[in-house]
């Protein structure tokens, strides 16, 4: 194939250039369309949650609402405040949104549908997503507005703080699987819940061995999802653009297309991270029937896998909307306390759990003499009784890590309760009632 293309187009670099240009074009078309669908989806869904109908005038079921909004955005006046730093103000939306679209370069859209397959794609996602903080900062500073600067400060502080638990949650999965390549995560999550691929020979691949069913994966997923909410500025963490406090945060001075680009970056960031979460924790494109379909008819299988993965990502987005429909938002200090006092320790404990699981799985398996995982305690292999059965080891690991993670969860909840003497009940006691009389 490649040879054939080379014959047509000339040397290989031209072929790769063309290939990359095509995938770039596809991404640059698909992502804005996704964004438009997302705005429509969010408005319709949240409207139903509020006993309303939502936009339903433009196009069938209001589907073209996003197009109408786009037209409006394009035709709106593009305001740059006189006191603003013109260039920084102009470039900020691009710096904030560009990296988000970069993300889609490494995220596989389905089986074999990965624009670029790099070996460290998990790390790429983390690294590139942190760039948009610079864009937010530029937007907030360049607008020369107190609210915008405050919003940018909040946004960046929040992004930086929540990146840490997110990275650690992903790290526990990297430790768990031993790969940083997003394309490889799906294969590792076949088989049955909890047991994974261990019974592959007995039971056909159901594609349900999602990591979210393991204690480590569950805790990791929870942490990662909360961090997505925070980094993507979704309720209850939409503090940087808290409309009731600081108007629209760093977007206060933006209008027209510049505003839309910011908005697009935010939504696509949510979508990209939802895809990453689906791939790493929710089994990628695994679903009963998909592995078989892929092996029988790869093109159809690839298409079906893209649909399944998309469905999972959209489901996560639905959950975000659901949360947005139900909750108020946290305060900045509470948000920080939550990240540093709850999520971070939990993520660290989760890493320990992952290490423990790995130990249980690998300790002296197979040929005991060659395995590097042979450390005996006083001549006795403490895990020797587990034998070589991966099923038994997996179950033991499951139980142990479940206990550790659940214990850590409740322990941290307990630690984070308000200290005695500051609870409202104590306040109520101080404020003894009944002394004031009626006039």
């Amino acid at each position: 194939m490649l040879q054939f293309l080379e014959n047509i187009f000339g040397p290989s670099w031209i072929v790769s250039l063309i290939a990359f240009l095509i995938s770039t074009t596809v991404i640059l078309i698909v992502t804005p369309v996704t964004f438009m669908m997302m705005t429509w989806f969010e408005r319709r869904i949240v409207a139903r949650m509020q006993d309303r109908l939502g936009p339903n005038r433009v196009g069938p079921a209001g589907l073209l609402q996003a197009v109408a909004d786009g037209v409006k955005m394009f035709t709106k006046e593009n305001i740059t405040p006189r006191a603003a730093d013109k260039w920084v103000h102009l470039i900020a939306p691009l710096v904030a949104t560009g990296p988000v679209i970069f993300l889609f370069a490494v995220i596989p859209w389905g089986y074999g549908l990965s624009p670029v397959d790099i070996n460290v794609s998990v790390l790429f996602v983390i690294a590139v997503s942190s760039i948009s903080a610079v864009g937010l900062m530029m937007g907030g500073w360049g607008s020369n507005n107190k609210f915008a600067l405050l919003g940018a400060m909040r946004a960046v502080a929040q992004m930086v703080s929540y990146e840490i638990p997110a990275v650690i949650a992903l790290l526990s999965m990297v430790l768990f699987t031993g790969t940083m390549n997003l394309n490889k995560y799906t294969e590792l999550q076949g088989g049955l819940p909890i047991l994974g691929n261990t019974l592959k020979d007995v039971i056909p691949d159901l594609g349900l061995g999602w990591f979210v069913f393991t204690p480590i994966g569950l805790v990791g997923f929870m942490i990662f999802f909360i961090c997505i909410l925070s980094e993507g500025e979704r309720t209850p963490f939409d503090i940087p653009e808290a409309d009731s406090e600081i108007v629209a945060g760093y977007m206060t001075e933006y209008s027209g297309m510049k505003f839309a680009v910011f908005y697009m970056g935010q939504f696509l960031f949510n979508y990209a991270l939802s895809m990453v979460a689906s791939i790493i924790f929710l089994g990628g494109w695994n679903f009963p029937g998909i592995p078989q379909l892929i092996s029988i008819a790869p093109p159809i299988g690839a298409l079906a896998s893209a649909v399944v993965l998309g469905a999972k990502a959209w489901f996560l987005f639905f959950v975000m909307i659901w949360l947005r429909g139900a909750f108020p938002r946290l305060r900045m200090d509470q948000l920080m306390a939550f990240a540093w006092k709850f999520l971070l320790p939990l993520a660290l404990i989760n890493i320990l759990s992952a290490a423990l699981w790995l130990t249980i799985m690998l300790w002296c398996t197979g040929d005991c003499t060659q395995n590097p995982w042979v450390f005996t305690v006083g001549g006795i292999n403490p895990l020797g009784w587990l034998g070589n059965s991966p099923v038994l080891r997996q179950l033991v690991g499951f139980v142990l890590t479940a206990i550790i993670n659940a214990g850590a969860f409740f322990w941290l909840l307990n630690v984070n309760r308000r200290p005695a003497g500051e609870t409202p009940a104590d306040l109520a006691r101080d404020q003894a009632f009944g002394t004031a009389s009626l006039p």
Partner: protein
Amino acid sequence: MTVEFDRGKAYVVDRGQPKLRAGQGMIAGLDVVIRHFFSAFTKKLETPDETSGVFTVQYPEERLAMPEAFRNFPILLFDDTTGQELCTSCFQCERICPPQVIHMTQAVDPTTGKPVPAVAEFMIEYDACMSCGLCAEVCPFDAIKMDHDFELATDDRAGMTVRKADLDRPVSYYETIAPTRWAEVKDGAYKKLQGNIKRRSGSIGLSPRAATAPKKAAPAAAKPAAGVAKPVAVKTAMPMAAPGKNMSEEKLARLLSIRAANVAKAGGAAPAEAEEVLATADTDDVAEAPAAVAAARPVSSGGIPFSADNLLGGVPANTTMAEDKVERLKSIRSGNLARRG
């Protein structure tokens, strides 16, 4: 400890027990929301005893039925058959109107020069009207009523000062929007109308709408039930004002002149002296003065039923009105004096 009252007590609200919170409350909230989400696909909230289901009313297509009591802006009624207006220009509504947006002039018999119980011009500033309904309540002749038509949005501010020709509605129209209310007052209103018609002569008291286009008025009257009444006022009033700036400017000028006159009268000037009016207007408000001058200059009566003469000149009805105002002013002044003293 609680405080007992007569027939009741004060009790402390339960803040709930302090307990380990692992997100139970949030999950309960999510549950409530998702229930609404699903019910919104299957149900439509139609009666007030439901608390779930879509409650959106898709406005231009779907409309809520308007209760009979609904009041938007005041309209004037005229009799379908004779075309006679029910209004006798008794100035009750003008006096009670809290924002003072109703203005009228009494008709004068051209032969005798005496006032007749009919209205020459009637003007309501819809843009400042607050729809309190006191005018309709106070009207002894049931001539002014509250309309149900609320689709009056316009970008023409001057057009929101509506004159008699656009205020007039046939009685049958009011009957369709408020049947029981009209039934209550119908006999009395017609009886009074008969009495008044006797004292009118010629075309005085005939509704311009009935006189010029009785055919048009009839379909408007035949409009079906309350909610779907066509915005008559918009359709007819706005085009009248729209044709050019001149028209609306004229209206505005007239309005200003009326205001200036009122100001002048309130200022204690004898209402008959136009010069004094102008002088007061000059000192009071420079901006209004040219308009007042323009209005006070004898206007050629070409098709304009509203002449400066009967606006400012010695019309007896105006004199009574002015007296009332002078009296009010005196009371205000004495009140102010008393307060200062």
